[in-house]
């Protein structure tokens, strides 16, 4: 296995509900190597999405450390975390989270507004990203004019356009039919295999998890690894 991109050590996460502090998990250790494609499964409430949020710098652990590419990220400020996300993370959401009033190309361009690229360079990158997901001919379409699968492909183009090191997918096929889901997962597989993207995907669908290189089961605050392809 290649060197680690993310290392979680002794991670604990608790949420406050009223006066009670509810633990999601405690003393969790985890390593995501570069070019990994890991599926995270587990029952509802096991903390899959919470883990994804911690990996993406959207949430902070209650305890423990998170190292990303050799640097600690759990102690960054809000602004530093925003810059970290812009530079390193591509998000793919279950409900695509596209901006309804923007065209596909404008949606894909959004992360590039956080870079130093000029308009022409941005246009080129957007064109390439849309070509990768096979939507070059839908660049001017609004999300409402696209099917669910096409919208998720736009979301993938948005996630990869700034060439982040890590793609985080939260139930990326949860809102799609089986056939379209297969297309999207195949696309993620290609991004991992051919472009070397590290992918962490939360899913409750064993069929979706089969597209990953490995599957981690999160339950009662512990991981167990299973090879669904075996």
């Amino acid at each position, binding site marked *: 296995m290649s060197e680690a991109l993310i290392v979680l050590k002794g991670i604990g996460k608790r949420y406050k509900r009223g006066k009670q502090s509810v633990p999601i998990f405690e003393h969790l250790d985890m390593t995501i190597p570069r070019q990994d494609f890991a599926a995270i499964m587990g029952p509802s409430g096991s903390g899959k*999405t919470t883990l*994804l*949020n911690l990996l*993406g710098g*959207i*949430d902070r652990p209650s305890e423990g450390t998170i190292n990303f590419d050799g640097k600690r990220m759990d102690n960054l400020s*809000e*602004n530093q975390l*925003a*810059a970290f*996300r*812009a*530079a390193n993370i591509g*998000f793919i*959401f*279950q*409900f695509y*989270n596209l*901006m*309804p*009033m*923007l065209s596909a190309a404008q949606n894909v361009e*959004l*992360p590039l*507004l*956080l*870079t*130093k690229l000029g308009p022409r360079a941005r246009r080129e990158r957007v064109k390439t990203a849309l070509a990768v997901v096979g939507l070059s001919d839908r660049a001017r379409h609004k999300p409402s004019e696209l099917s669910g699968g096409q919208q998720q492909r736009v979301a993938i183009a*948005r996630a990869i356009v700034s060439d982040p090191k890590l793609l985080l997918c*939260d139930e990326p096929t949860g809102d799609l039919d089986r056939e379209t889901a297969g297309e999207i997962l195949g696309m993620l597989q290609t991004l991992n295999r051919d472009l070397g993207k590290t992918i962490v995907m939360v899913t409750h669908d064993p069929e979706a998890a089969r597209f990953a290189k490995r599957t981690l089961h999160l339950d009662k605050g512990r991981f167990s690894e299973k090879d669904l392809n075996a």
Partner: protein
Amino acid sequence: MARTLAQINAVTSMNLRSIPSRLWTSISTVVAVGIATGVLLSFLAMSNGFRSTVKGTGSPDVAIFLRKGGGGELNSIITREQVQLIEEAKGIAKGPDGKALLSAEMYSVVDGIKKSSGTKANLPLRGVGPNAVNVRRGIKISAGRMFQSGTAELVVGRAVSKQFKGFELGRTIRLASQNWKVVGEFEAGGSVFESEIWSDIAMLQGLYRRGSSVQTVRARMEDPNRLKELLAFSDADPRLKLDVKAETEFYANQSRGISDLILYLGWPLAIAMSFGALAGALNTMYASVDARMREIATMRAIGFGGLPAFVGTMTESLLLSAIGGVVGTLFAYLLFDGISASTLGSNFTQVVFSFKFTPELVVQGVFLSLIIGFAGGVFPAWRAARVPLLAAFREQ
């Protein structure tokens, strides 16, 4: 900096482009702000119109003599002997006949019927002599002729014949138990005099059994600086002891109370309505932020800062309010600019004036709308900047 501007531009553009999806709440905000602005501007234009009508009355080189402490013309009384003493004062210009150019006048109040409402209102009936027109500037008979001395004839100001019944040229009208014939109409440059009825002073003195006393004396000075001399002259002679004021100052003082009253009514009303508009703006902007919660959280997750979300929401609020302000201003202008109204002046008589819009008033109206926009946007914008990023992952 350029990247921050690009982010702000992107978020603001998205906010504004999403307004059609919240069309009705946005329109209600525009309307509420428009009404508040329109009401304020109407009152300001009314106050402004009244003030400029009264303030524009009188000349700086005309001195007005009144009973000491009398305040207005209605309460004043000056005897014939005092008038003769004033004729001797230095600093008063001479007429073509070589005599002091002054006009002794009576001032009384009669009933008029408003054409607009059919209700009674007080109108000033001024008794004057031939010098009234020579002492004042800008009095012009615009129709008919001047009344003849010793007859029950009237000339009426243009505003009176426009707004009150029965003062048309050639008509006979009964005022103060006397039938009068309207023989002329006069203009006075839009000043208060246009709200007056003039008759022969001798007729009025007889009618009111005032003998030879008058109420005020107007005197044309050689130049405005001679006022101090006239004041000193009046103070020095125990038989006089009259108030002496420049006519411009006299009317400015008269206008202040009423125009302030209009202002003091207008501002609180506009402020009360502004609170209503503010509630509307807050509601609209909170709805806007709530509707875009997932979008904002997604943008933040991608790496956008809180500032663009704040600026985008503020811009939307300010834009809606500014549109409301402009619409309200436009409506108020189209409805009210130049229209005539009348109100009670300080002598308990009607003063006819026109609503007057000025660029300064429009600036005040738009400023009010922007204040509403700012106050209505700042809290929702703060919420937008603090949207929890986890909202991006929640189910729809």
